[in-house]
């Protein structure tokens, strides 16, 4: 029933040209969100979909008033949101329950803060507990509950204050597959029956299937900086079934949209591959995952070219696992990714066929040739008479281009790939790179 919202309704929430940047220690700005526009109308569930680090959680926090934007404005019912607003509540990925409060006390928290009288507070809380399927658990402490029950408390706590907008930050991603499925369909049932006291939902997710199942509209985010690159309307009636061909087609479409690169970068072959300077932030992907992915794509039925949704399903990888891995293979010139497909390059095919030492040699060659940071580390080590260099030396260099955390992760990635390729060694207790492997 919520599939198509009449467009004439005034938006509940209007996000206009929001920018968010953080100041780095050296005074430079790090842009996380760039010119984000979106609106949320009554009766719809909107999903924000993107890879990790695309700033979607940051956007959610801007909207919640927890961390106001550096530019642009978030308007809720015509009022600018600069601090947490009464009509917007949030469900957290990690539940964020207070472990020292019982289920009932946790649910009452928001009402208590509003100064609702005791009797009224209890009545409404028990009602919410009842609605969300937690009867009988009122006096339990969060640690006595399973993950699914804990998130139900999270939902009851957010719903009891009767917000207009419910924000959900990857609410099902900390749950096992089965529990997440149950909770999702329970939520959709209540929403469909109009039992929830909310007008609209904005959710962040990295699970494409979940997004297509729940949302009326999907906004796809790009990374670095975070921007809305496309919008997909999902006009399938609820309940939606994962085996419905139209459902599968939509999932394919989302993959295609998510692997489209900005038009400018597509002009020449060399620029099709990201990461041309040492300042490219890397997401850590274990060499085991890279090997496994290349092997899987090389094998039948894919034979070197795989549809991303299909391979994601086969390997049980979510967007957050699959895209960084695909990107890493692309950076190392072992694969090309476009239009929702992944194709192994000659080197990638060779890698998948080789074994043991041959693989390592090939990987080492590609690492030094195509990952400028790896080449840089190696060069510094070669040039020095001691053949060793402190990690902080490279961290300082990287921090000119990225945040401290991103620099840390990038170095972790380089260390792990360098160790696998035996291009250099790293000693964690001295925090130093060197050329000799410990005996």
């Amino acid at each position, binding site marked *: 029933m919520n599939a198509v919202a009449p467009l004439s309704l005034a938006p509940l929430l209007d996000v206009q040209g929001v920018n*968010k*940047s*953080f*100041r780095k220690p050296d005074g430079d700005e790090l842009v996380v969100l760039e010119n984000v526009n979106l609106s949320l109308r009554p009766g719809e569930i909107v999903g924000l979909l993107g890879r990790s680090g695309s700033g979607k959680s940051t956007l959610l*926090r801007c909207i*919640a008033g*927890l*961390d*106001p*934007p*550096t530019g642009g404005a978030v308007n809720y019912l015509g009022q600018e949101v*600069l*601090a*947490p*607003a*009464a009509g*917007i*509540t*949030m469900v*957290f*990925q*990690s*539940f*964020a329950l*207070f*472990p*020292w*409060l019982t289920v*009932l006390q946790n649910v009452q*928290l*928001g009402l*208590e*803060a*509003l*100064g609702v009288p005791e009797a009224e507070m*209890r*009545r409404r809380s*028990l*009602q919410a507990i009842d609605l969300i399927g937690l*009867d*009988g658990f*009122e*006096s339990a*402490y*969060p*640690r*006595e509950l399973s993950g699914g029950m*804990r998130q139900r408390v999270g939902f009851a*706590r957010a719903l009891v*204050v009767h917000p207009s907008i419910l924000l959900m930050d990857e609410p099902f991603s900390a749950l096992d597959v089965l529990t997440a499925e149950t909770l999702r369909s329970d939520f959709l049932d209540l929403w469909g029956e109009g039992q929830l006291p909310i007008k609209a939902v904005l959710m962040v997710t990295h699970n494409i299937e979940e997004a297509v199942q729940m949302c009326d509209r999907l906004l796809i985010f790009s990374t670095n900086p975070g921007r809305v690159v496309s919008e997909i309307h999902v006009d399938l009636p609820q309940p939606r079934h994962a085996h419905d061909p139209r459902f599968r087609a939509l999932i394919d479409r989302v993959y295609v949209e998510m692997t489209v690169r900005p038009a400018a970068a597509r002009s020449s072959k060399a620029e099709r591959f990201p990461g041309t300077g040492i300042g490219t932030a890397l997401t850590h992907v274990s060499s085991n995952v890279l090997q496994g992915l290349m092997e899987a794509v090389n094998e039948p039925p894919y034979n070197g070219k795989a549809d991303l949704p299909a391979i994601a399903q086969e390997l049980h990888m979510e967007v957050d696992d699959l895209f960084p891995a695909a990107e890493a293979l692309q950076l190392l010139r072992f694969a090309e990714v476009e239009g929702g497909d992944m194709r192994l390059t000659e080197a990638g095919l060779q890698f998948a066929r080789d074994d043991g030492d041959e693989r390592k040699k090939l990987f080492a060659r590609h690492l030094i040739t195509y990952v400028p940071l790896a080449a840089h580390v190696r060069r510094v080590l070669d040039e020095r008479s001691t053949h060793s260099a402190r990690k902080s030396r490279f961290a300082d260099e990287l921090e000119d281009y990225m945040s401290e955390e991103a620099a840390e992760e990038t170095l972790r990635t380089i260390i792990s790939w360098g160790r696998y390729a035996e291009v250099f060694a790293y000693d*964690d*207790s001295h925090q130093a790179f060197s050329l000799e492997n410990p005996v």
Partner: protein
Amino acid sequence: MRLDRLPLAVLRNRYVPGGWDVLAFVLVFAFFVYLAQAARGLTGSLAHLEATPISLDPHALVGYAARTGLRMLVALACSLLFTFTYATLAAKSRRAEVLLVPLLDFLQSVPILSFSIVIIFFVQLTPGRVAGAEFAAIFLIFTSQAWNMAFSFYHSLRSIPDELVEAARNFQLSPWMRFWRLEVPFAMPPLIWNMMMSVSGGWFFVVASEALTVGENRIALPGVGSYIALANDQRDYAAIGWAIAAMFVVILLFDQLIFRPLIASADWFRLEQETGQTANSPWALTMMRRSHILGMIGRAFAGALRSGMRPARPAAQPVRAHESRGSRLADLAWYALLIALGLLALWKAATFIRGDVPVGEVRHVIVLGLITLLRVAVLIALASLIWVPVGVWVGMRPRVAQIIQPVAQFLAAFPTNLFFGFVVSAIVLFHLTPDIWLSPLMILGTQWYILFNVIVGASAISPDLRYASENLGLTGWLWWKRLALPAVFPFYVTGAITAAGGSWNASVAAEVVSWGRETVTAHGLGAYIAAAQSTSPPDLPRVVLGTVVLSVFVVTLNRVFWRPLYARAERKFRLS
């Protein structure tokens, strides 16, 4: 809403007195009688106090123990108040933080005995009355309790998980509500542990806090500390024995009535959300939960607290992520002010000391500091050699650990003064060198922190690791080198930091020792401070000089040695 379906736990508020009520009533009533009696003692005159000297009669000890216990309790309450305000301010205000945290670091390193230079201030507040001396005693106990509690609370406030803070903000909790609903419960488990350590610390200096010297006068407040002081003066071994017994009883009462219930309830505060092993509930907690009278009092208290939790009106002023130029200017002004104040204080202190103390003596004091440093280092090394293996052995055996832990805690509270008799007699009898044989006194109370922490560390070794090392045939030295020592190392460092800090502090009480008319003195910074303090009137410039040098030693060692070691241990030996 179907009220008939409400769970029992929600509806249980009809009043039916029960057996636990009787016990609760008796205890509460006894406590009020006890408070009233102690309060009468406060209003008395000093002259009257001097006319009734401390008696070594064991029967008198009952009253003394009660008075000492009450002082500890009041000091603990003051420390808690200090903790909640000072640490909260330090954690919430970035500007206050730059001043308050280093100041706390410094205060923690100041030996408790150095604080006794402020006794005169308290005594003069109420001339001729006991109350002033009582305040002074409570203040001295406070200085042995407050700092580590404040530190623990500050660290907890800084480490509240982001998502809980965000949830609190999302549901618009007012600052007051946030404090009681989020911050205090989160900080509770480590705070309780630190309160227990603080009470031990208070006992350790019980003699110094009750037997006060004011100018020419000595004031002996009725209490266990004064009793021990007198027993030392009169070389009465039997009285020392009685004092130990009294101390044991008070510590046991604190443990049973305050700390056991607190620990059991704080177990619910732990963040790890697994179903923990449910330890058997202590009887005092059962009483508090089952007794309806106490339940009603508790609910009234909670109601009062809640009425303070006024709804937070949305902050209208925009909170921008980047700070304005104006606020940065204010920052600069604030730091400039702090630096100016610091320089002024330094200059004041320097002129104060320079007035009486020649420059050469400063060098001498630093050498004394090095001597004490050597003593502390050797003692910590020796204590580690003994207690690390013992701690590992005990930690691997939960049953033994359950027995050993309270015993070690009791031993940590043991005032050094209780051993003065044995040590002085032995030194005089066998003509031993005080510089060596007085040293063990410094570590008597503090070595147990090494043992505690190693026990905790050893009991935290995962069974999987133990099975794996058994499976691989690790035995003997290899087992210690590869499993036990690395596993307990971060815990050991925590314990050693506490033990070393405590030993410095104890040096003031342990380098000069009297038993009757016999006084034995070792060379060291502690003896220097103790000597400057025991002249009448106290030699303030020298007390200040000694204290500053000692603080500089302790703070520097923490910064250049212990903290890097701890950071390294954390990084290297913690999985994930």
